[in-house]
């Protein structure tokens, strides 16, 4: 199964280990993974701030990059290939918002609709396309899973990541109270209204601390960046990790 890896800009720049782990896990599961190197940003920050024109230009570039039309040799086969990214939020941007952005552009409208059927969030891809049973890991730890809003509500991801985590022997999953409440990141919201954003993070962190778990795991590094930044500021010594990182760490080769 061939996969074009979609690595959101901030993961590329700030959390490369998330992308490395994603790559590792997908290859471990037998995928033929390529990373189209001309990709940059999906345009979500501009889109969610109301700059639709800027977002549209970035989206065009991203679409072309992801299907290997810009500089890479690997052209995308819409019948057999998949695009997989380790971010519910950015995948939702491509799957749900691109067709909206391009509603008045015939060519890109069709392209983005075709694309939206082939783009998957990482855990969703394993759950729905590869099959959970193909994955098995081992890691002694206690985690809570944080549902990112876009993963949960835009993509309908809820049980998949939990099923995956349960495939890791030695891992104990403790549910967060009010797990479906937003952590307060919200893209530019986090810097436009930092006090509210931080108050929301505190609510989430209080609930997390209450579980006694060691690691907060999520499918979105943006939520984690925000929560970890707040936890470090307020002195909560916990680890925040992307589900791909936890999976990669749980693989046999990784433990040796």
């Amino acid at each position: 199964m061939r996969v074009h890896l979609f690595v959101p800009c901030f993961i590329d720049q700030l959390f490369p280990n998330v992308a490395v782990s994603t790559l590792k896990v997908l290859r471990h599961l037998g995928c033929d993974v390529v990373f189209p190197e001309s990709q940059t940003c999906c345009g979500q920050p501009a889109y969610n701030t109301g700059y639709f024109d800027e977002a549209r230009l970035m989206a065009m570039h991203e679409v072309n990059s992801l299907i290997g039309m810009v500089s890479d040799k690997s052209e995308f086969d819409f019948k057999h290939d998949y695009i997989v990214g380790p971010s519910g939020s950015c995948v939702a941007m491509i799957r749900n918002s691109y067709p909206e952005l391009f509603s008045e552009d015939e060519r890109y409208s069709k392209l983005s609709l075709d694309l939206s059927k082939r783009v998957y969030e990482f855990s969703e891809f394993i759950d729905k396309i590869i099959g959970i049973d193909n994955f098995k890991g081992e890691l002694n730890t206690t985690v809570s899973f944080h549902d990112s809003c876009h993963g949960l509500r835009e993509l309908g991801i809820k049980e998949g990541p939990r099923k995956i985590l349960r495939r890791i022997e030695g891992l104990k999953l403790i549910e967060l109270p009010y797990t479906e409440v937003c952590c307060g990141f919200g893209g530019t919201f986090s810097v436009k209204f930092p006090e509210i954003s931080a108050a929301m993070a505190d609510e989430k962190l209080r609930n997390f601390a209450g579980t006694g778990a060691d690691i907060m795991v999520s499918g979105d590094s943006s939520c984690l960046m925000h929560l970890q930044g707040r936890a470090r500021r307020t002195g909560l010594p916990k680890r925040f990790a992307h589900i791909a990182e936890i999976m990669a760490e749980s693989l046999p080769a990784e433990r040796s």
Partner: protein
Amino acid sequence: MELRSRKFRTLYKTEVGNAQLRANLSKATLQAVDKRGQSFAEVDFKFLQDEAKKIKQESLSRLNDLLSQFEDSARKNNCRIFYAQTPEKANAYVLDIARRYGARTAVKSKSMVTEEIGLAPFLIRNGIETVETDLGEYIVQLAGETPSHITTPAIHKSRTEISRLFHDKLGTELNSDPAFLTAEARRVLREKFLSADIGISGANFLVAETGDIVIVENEGNARLSTSAVKVHIVVTGIEKVIPKFSDLRIFMRLLGRSSTGQKITSYVSLLRGPSTEDEKDGPEEVHIILLDNGRSGLLGTDHQEVLHCIRCGACLNVCPVYRNIGGHAYGSVYPGPIGSLVTPLYFGEQNAPDLPFASSLCGNCTEVCPVGIDIHHQLLAVRHEIKSAKKGGVERFIFRNYRKAMLRPGRYRLAGKIARGLSKTPLLRYFLKGWTQHRELPRFPSRSFREIYKSAKAK
């Protein structure tokens, strides 16, 4: 009420630091969220939501005809109809009726539209004692404040604060037991009901087919405000009309569950006008004021669905932003997610430039909306309109250059490298102070993923 939504940036900052407020709100809203969830166990929420949305779509798309039909039905029931474009006109009409009747006291039940037009303060200024009779509204009125929630007006107040208020204003003993406080309010308000001349209410629904004015409530104050008076004045928005009596089977199941987790509210009044010859009490006159005030301007636009709102308050209860700043921060009668739409869309986007941005777009509001308003995407659309109307500005400059960098992978790589290089300098922290005042920056890696990927590939 005076619109202060332009001052949102200042207002929210004082509220977000108020620990008591946050504690009050957290307790109340989370309880409402839990109860709401449980109450939908026996019914098909999706079905109800779809039907309600369909009915509201039809109601708006046939609004001209349905209003005419409602007028006919209501006139047959001996009601009088008055259309008002502005709050001033609606207020003037109410005052005119009150004066004609020589009214001294008006009892009022909860209604968002009367809050919107500032009816109670207006009547009081004009010498008519106007008493809020919903307990929450009464508390807020005694305190000289405005409601901070659509269905739970005094949600921001603790029992201790209310007990102190009653002690100061009514001379009751300092007892913070809600049952005691409620009994005190009952005692005072009962006297008001018995001496009132006119009653003022809103309407949850107007049924075109039958002329019914439908009012839902829990306390019985709306029942009394509309029954123990000579004149009943209904003040409501033009968007409240629905086509059929049978449509109520959908809305009655949604409204109570969405607002308080009740299968149906304790009281549902289906009012059809002044008392008939066979009846021995009830109003002699019923006036229905249909307010526009910015509503008709949304028809035929992408924002038409905002008019579906039945003011249940579910989106406020689930909203983590609302929970952390409370209703007053919004500076508008309509707070929370739906308020961040209604305020700019009814009263002008220039009057609420920040509200549509005060959302993390988590979408929980959209998920619970009983009438299927895509609230968070509507917020996004209003953001776009606000940005499109404003030329220039630092933010636009940043996004334009950001985009330029993103279209050239080379520039993107370079920019990333520079940013990561700068991460240890105070300069970047300065530029990111919106972030760093409240959070640590992540530890910047020395190499980006693409660099790692490239070097691995080269091996």
